[in-house]
């Protein structure tokens, strides 16, 4: 993307990559909702976004305050469902903003035609 996709738009790219990584963890938590001993995984989104700007990989953490079931699993379907739709919406916002950035670039290339 380098030269074409600069400034704010480059941040969208990081943001969307991070959202994808988080959505993957949510999918993983949902898939393991019945696996004994499985612990919910998540990333600290805001802190990781700061890190991602400097090109670091996100680290996976275990969120606090989740109720542990008798089989040692602590996946909360409600929490994961909320994150699932939250990530999708954030992603839609970022991709729409990135798209408008791209279309102004295109307008510039085509001399505003």
């Amino acid at each position: 993307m380098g030269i074409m996709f600069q400034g704010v738009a480059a941040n969208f790219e990081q943001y969307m990559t991070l959202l994808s990584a988080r959505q993957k963890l949510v999918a993983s938590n949902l898939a393991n909702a019945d696996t004994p001993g499985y612990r919910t995984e998540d990333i600290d989104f805001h802190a990781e976004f700061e890190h991602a700007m400097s090109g670091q990989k996100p680290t996976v953490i275990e969120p606090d305050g989740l109720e542990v079931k008798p089989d040692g699993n602590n996946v909360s379907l409600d929490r994961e469902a909320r994150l699932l739709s939250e990530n999708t919406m954030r992603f839609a916002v970022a991709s729409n903003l990135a798209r408008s950035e791209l279309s102004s670039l295109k307008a510039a290339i085509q001399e505003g035609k």
Partner: protein
Amino acid sequence: MSLLSALSISASGMSAQRARTELLVQNLANSDTTRTPEGGPYRRKDVVFTTDPSAGAQFSSMFDSAMGNNGMGVKVAGVVTDPREPEKRYEPGHPDADQDGYVLIPRMNPAEDMVDLMSASRSFQANVSAVSAVKDMIQKSLDLFRS
């Protein structure tokens, strides 16, 4: 790509829940079965799930997990048979009755299986929602090419 491996993780969840449903339905269907190929009455079966780091087994997801950016799929680790003794019912006319007139009937609690069945179906739905959310995100990324 992270989103594509999220799809395979959800798919692993769906197939694990389907395997569980198959066994639960088998349990319900065999709740009065007194003869099996192994001998004796039918015994209730259940699955054990375990996390599966290689779900999807795509190069990129293997690479991601090697890089420590893991997300775990799920797989069926094994099928366990209920160790509880079968019930004894006095039915002297039954072809499978022993010399005292008792028949061994599977120890089955339909409520237990129905509740598990509901839980399996809810978990399956949760995975389906995850698939459609991820599909939505992939579609949004593809739409960037169409501006």
